[in-house]
């Protein structure tokens, strides 16, 4: 596929410690790609490297065939890649509206930003009512909704989510997954890093499982036969 987001033979880590050893992932446009794995498996590290938050030590990252390896973080939005860090990454002292405007920062077009925000916020009645509330005083679930809406202001090709379910109640995890499917319905490609396999697996089009910084499994959700099979992959089998 021409417009896919690809990571080839990526090696990276924090400081001098190598976390990700030679990992390859490809995310097709308009589909949901999930990366699962236990703590320390390197799954978040991979999307941080794609976003430019961490340097790639070796390997290539490409979007639609164009190399984007090593580009600075702030240029990613205009390339069409938006990353949502763990917890959503909203600005606590900004109101909901200011957060959404910040989502359109890279557009540098006030009118376009306001139009996009108005059409997005219509889908979020809770946020509609709390436009002028500082995001820091919203609940974790509401902050996640702000973060998801904010990610869409620039109309990106890909949204990467780092453990969106972390710290949310089961009902909110479910709602968040529905919103993730909503992203796909808008034609946005999704890369989601998750620990909550039970909730995230059903929405995944393609599935990767990492352990110990290596790719242990790549396929579709149908390829995972049952819980025992999943467990054995997790524990380091194939």
């Amino acid at each position: 596929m021409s417009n896919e987001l690809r990571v080839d033979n990526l090696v990276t880590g924090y400081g001098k410690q190598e976390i990700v050893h030679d990992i390859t992932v490809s995310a097709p446009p308009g589909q949901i790609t999930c990366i699962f794995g236990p703590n320390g498996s390197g799954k978040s590290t991979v999307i941080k490297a794609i976003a430019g938050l961490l340097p790639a030590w070796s390997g290539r990252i490409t979007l639609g065939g164009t190399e984007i390896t090593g580009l600075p973080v702030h240029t990613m939005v205009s390339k069409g890649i938006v990353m949502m860090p763990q917890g959503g990454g909203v600005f606590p002292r900004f109101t909901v509206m200011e957060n959404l405007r910040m989502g359109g920062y890279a557009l540098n077009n006030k009118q376009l930003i306001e139009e996009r925000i108005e059409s997005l916020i219509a889908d979020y009645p809770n946020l509609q009512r709390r436009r002028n509330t500082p995001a820091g005083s919203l609940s974790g679930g509401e902050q996640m909704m702000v973060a998801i809406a904010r990610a869409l202001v620039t109309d990106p090709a890909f949204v990467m989510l780092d453990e969106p379910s972390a710290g949310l109640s089961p009902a909110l995890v479910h709602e968040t997954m529905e919103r993730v499917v909503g992203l796909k319905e808008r034609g946005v490609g999704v890369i989601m890093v998750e620990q909550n396999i039970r909730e995230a697996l059903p929405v995944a089009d393609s599935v990767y499982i990492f352990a110990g910084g290596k790719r242990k499994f790549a396929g579709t959700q149908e390829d995972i036969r049952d819980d025992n099979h999943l467990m054995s992959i997790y524990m380091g089998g194939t």
Partner: protein
Amino acid sequence: MDLFLQTLVNGILIGGILICLTIGFQLTFGVLHVIDFAVGGWTMLGGYTAYWLVTLAGIDPFISIFLVFALFLLIGRGLGPLIYHVRTSRYARPDLMALAFTFGIFLFMRGGALWLWSYNSRSVDSVLSGQFLSLGPVTIPLMRLSAFLLAMLFSLGLFILLYRSRFGMAVRALAQNHDHAGLMGVDVKRVSAWVYGIYTALTASAGVLIATIYSVNPSVGIRYTLFAFFVAVLAGLGSVGGVLVAGLALGLLEAYVATYIGARYSLLIVFGTLYLVLLVAPKGVLGRGI
């Protein structure tokens, strides 16, 4: 009663200048997380620049202050990436490294000024020197009034920039989280460097006003570094709004101490007050945040 009113006016006028002196320092702390020890050094250099501009070129300090602002904006913008580099280094305790680094800059400025211009105090002349405005019992030196108004103009300008512009939104986002601002498309390095430039420009401009009202010599720096620390800590480190309250408070405190107790006690009482306030409100008068 007349003396009381006169002191009130003096305190407010000086307080305005202290606001201008500290507001950029506070912004730098809020955004770059750097406590810039060189704040008094920038004040001193601003004063000397105004002195040379009026002595060599005959430009009145109330005009040259805009040149000083532009000059130090560029100097700070140039130095900004270096400060950012030190502050974000991967080595241990970059916060302390940045403090030591700016302390080094401060010593360099002080030593350089001593070497170039000797220890003598220089006064900066303005056409407004020696002119007064009488309002009933209160006499206001026109120079202090103009200095106050200019300081307020610069500080107001900063608020407008912060709260009404795209750049300001990026700065405020940066003050909350560098990574998250970067993910929104903010060029963190570039914006940080401009913030440092704005800080040095504001501080050097305050230095012009201070040198015009008092005088300037190579060792005034430490006094204004202490004042900036006082205002910043009283305001709550990183709180730009709190500077308005804390700057006025310091101006008034200093004026009343000088009038009723004696100018030589001012630093003692100023820092005694800071100590007591911090016992009661350790986060400063307005808490954190831009």
